[in-house]
């Protein structure tokens, strides 16, 4: 594998340094005078972060390759700065067997743009009744550690209890889509509040999430197991998690970029692009989520990237599919709503978008410090570049992009996965030239 020299990147936004990557590993950090056969990535003024890790994406393959494939989803991930993504199990067929998990793993590897990590279903067919073969998925080549029925809540307390007990044996975690189906059924599509009342849309009350999270943290305490709360959307859930962590309960949580930035009033135009589950919430919730991410109550940002074919979104609002794109815009959203207002610094971004999600998902080679001997997964960010999102330019196969037309400051410039450049915005202007000044005396790599 060829060598890569990343020049002048500000590590976690701090001091600038050069990074020399060889054979997929960071070999040297400092002031490097490179020579010989080396590809150079000029990162002057850019912030270097460990490669981003997304605990929650939907890549739709197998089953809905018209909406996304592992290849297009991987390309979107790379463009968003991600070097690992956890692919949710609600495909067709469902990832509820070792074979299905290995298939996703292999498709991801063949693509090679990002580490595609299959999430296993908690229950067979996501039906919430019988446990899927959690142990066989864990023992498979895919080494599944994160289990989720995402899209559905594991609402039966006994099933949830058994799942939590069972995954302890192999250090697994259950990622819960918290939605009490009796309080928020399949028709629930708008945050229950003044907006849903006025629009006549079926309400999705915060309590439907909070009550499940409250139950689950108690189940985690009871079983001594580990629970992860997917897409936290309310201030009430934040309170429950904060309390649970203070008790020493092993709970982690993620929040999506859209719940950090978009609010329920966007639904006033009945545009299904804003239909997502859990729904967009009021400003008070958004502010509580930002604060919780900053203070560590919420551990990670996860996109819940949910591509949909056009025809599945062009229905009346209540009939349209839930979900929105997120992989390519996540870093820019976090930069805009957390870094620029001073709630997080770049080291904080590395925590919530890389090291914490890697730890939660059990990925030992991801989210590592930018230091010698770490695997070369990293993301280069221009903290000052303004981007205006254009849905048409997405690498995703779908266009259900709620960020279209919005402008953010801070954007991914390049992504390095396993020592290979998987995305480089400036690829056409910034030449990856072999260093012809290789004859520089003393250059010895």
């Amino acid at each position: 594998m060829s060598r890569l020299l990343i020049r002048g990147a500000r590590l976690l936004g701090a001091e600038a340094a050069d990074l020399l990557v060889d054979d997929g590993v960071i070999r040297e950090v400092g002031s490097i005078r490179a020579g010989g056969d080396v590809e150079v990535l000029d990162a002057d003024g850019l912030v270097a972060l460990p490669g981003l890790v997304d605990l929650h994406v939907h890549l739709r393959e197998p089953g809905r390759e018209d909406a996304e494939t592992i290849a297009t989803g991987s390309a979107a991930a790379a463009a968003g700065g991600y070097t690992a993504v956890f692919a949710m199990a609600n495909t067709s067929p469902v990832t509820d067997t070792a074979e299905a998990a290995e298939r996703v793993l292999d498709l991801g590897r063949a693509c090679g743009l990002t580490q595609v990590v299959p999430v296993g279903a908690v229950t067979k067919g996501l039906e919430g009744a019988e446990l899927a073969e959690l142990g066989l998925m864990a023992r498979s080549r895919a080494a599944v550690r994160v289990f989720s029925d995402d899209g559905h809540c594991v609402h039966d307390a006994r099933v949830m209890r058994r799942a939590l007990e069972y995954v302890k044996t192999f250090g697994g975690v259950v990622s819960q889509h918290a939605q009490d189906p009796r309080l928020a059924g399949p028709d629930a599509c708008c945050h229950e509040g003044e907006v849903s009342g006025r629009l006549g849309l079926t309400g999705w009350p915060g309590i439907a999430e909070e009550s499940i999270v409250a139950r689950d943290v108690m189940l985690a305490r009871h079983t001594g197991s580990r629970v992860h709360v997917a897409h936290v959307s309310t201030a009430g859930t934040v309170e429950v998690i904060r309390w649970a962590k203070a008790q020493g309960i092993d709970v982690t949580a993620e929040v999506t970029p859209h719940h950090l930035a978009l609010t329920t009033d966007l639904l006033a135009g009945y545009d299904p692009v804003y239909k997502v589950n859990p729904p967009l919430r009021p400003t008070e919730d958004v502010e509580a989520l930002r604060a919780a991410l900053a203070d560590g109550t919420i551990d990670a940002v996860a996109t819940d990237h949910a591509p949909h074919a056009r025809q599945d979104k062009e229905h009346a609002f209540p009939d349209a599919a839930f979900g929105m794109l997120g992989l390519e815009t996540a870093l820019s959203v976090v930069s805009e709503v957390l870094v620029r207002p001073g709630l997080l610094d770049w080291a904080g971004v590395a925590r919530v978008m890389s090291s914490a999600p890697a730890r939660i998902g059990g990925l030992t080679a991801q989210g590592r410090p930018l230091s010698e001997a770490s695997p070369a997964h990293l993301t280069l960010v221009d903290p000052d570049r303004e981007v205006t999102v254009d849905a048409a330019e997405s690498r995703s196969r779908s266009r259900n992009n709620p960020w279209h037309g919005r402008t953010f400051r801070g954007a991914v410039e390049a992504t390095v996965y396993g020592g290979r450049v998987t995305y480089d915005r400036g690829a056409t202007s910034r030449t990856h030239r072999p260093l012809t000044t290789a004859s520089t005396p003393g250059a010895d790599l």
Partner: protein
Amino acid sequence: MTKHLISSADLSRAEVEDILETAASMHDLQRREVKKVPTLRGRTIINFFFEDSTRTRSSFEIAGKWMSADTINLSAKGSSTSKGESLRDTAMTVDAMAVDALVIRHNASGACHQVAQWVRCSVINAGDGTHEHPTQALLDAYTLRTRLGDLDGKHVVIVGDLTHSRVFRSNVITLKTLGARVTVVAPPTLMPSGIGAWSAADGFATSWDLDAVLDGDDTVDAVMMLRVQRERMSGGYFPTAREYTVGYGLTRDRLDRLVARNDDVLVLHPGPMNRGLEISPEAADAPQSVVLDQVSAGVAVRMAVLYHLLAGDDTPAPAVAATTPSSTHASPPATTATTEGAAR
């Protein structure tokens, strides 16, 4: 006047009054032997009903026909499911036939709003899910004004399943537009979410106690009873029909108390009525009841809406000019019928 009528909020007070005045002329026409006017000759109106309806669809159909438009009824129950044709495809297919107006009834809130963004023709909301039903609010306002005159300061009480009522949502807007004071009454389970902030922002009152409102200091000028669907019981919104009636029905006793305080009080119901549940037979058939007036006003008001949306400045000259030399936006077509000497 806007191109579409999606929400009651689309209409200013002047526009509502304009429509209601036109409706009065139309209402006169309705009482004639020959009811047809040529105003919308050559125009095509599609009544696209994704949900069952009897009175709304027939009144739109009659309204269009009496104005000489070609009206076509399409029923597409069930085609709104995500497995069928997308709403966008359905809307654009109909629009591609170069129709002038789409009258839409849909079981999904917001459907008309969405369709209006995809098509070139006018879109008229004939009821979208649990969102709005603006022509119902207009015909209710017409009925109220016929009996009460100017609605400024009049106190209208709306009672029933507010959560699932598009009639309530449109009425509360139009009544406020016309200056009425509105109180809405329902058990907490049938109050829309966020009603506290909503009512504060839009200036109407809410109560869980019907008797307190009816017997309160603020004399009631009209009470509008909303239909309560019996299936709401299985949804746990209230325990039994009997309990609902005791708490929120317009019983004979409540009617007597209302009339004792104000002989001119009006009783409205958008229909179809559940006699014995939300409204007693005595109340439904009382002299104070204007339920049939509402139905009668339905055609006239819908004619007025079609007129204002379709016979605007861009009305092709021949259809109107040939028969109504003085027809302009300001002179409703019923005038024409009069000049033609249509028999009464």
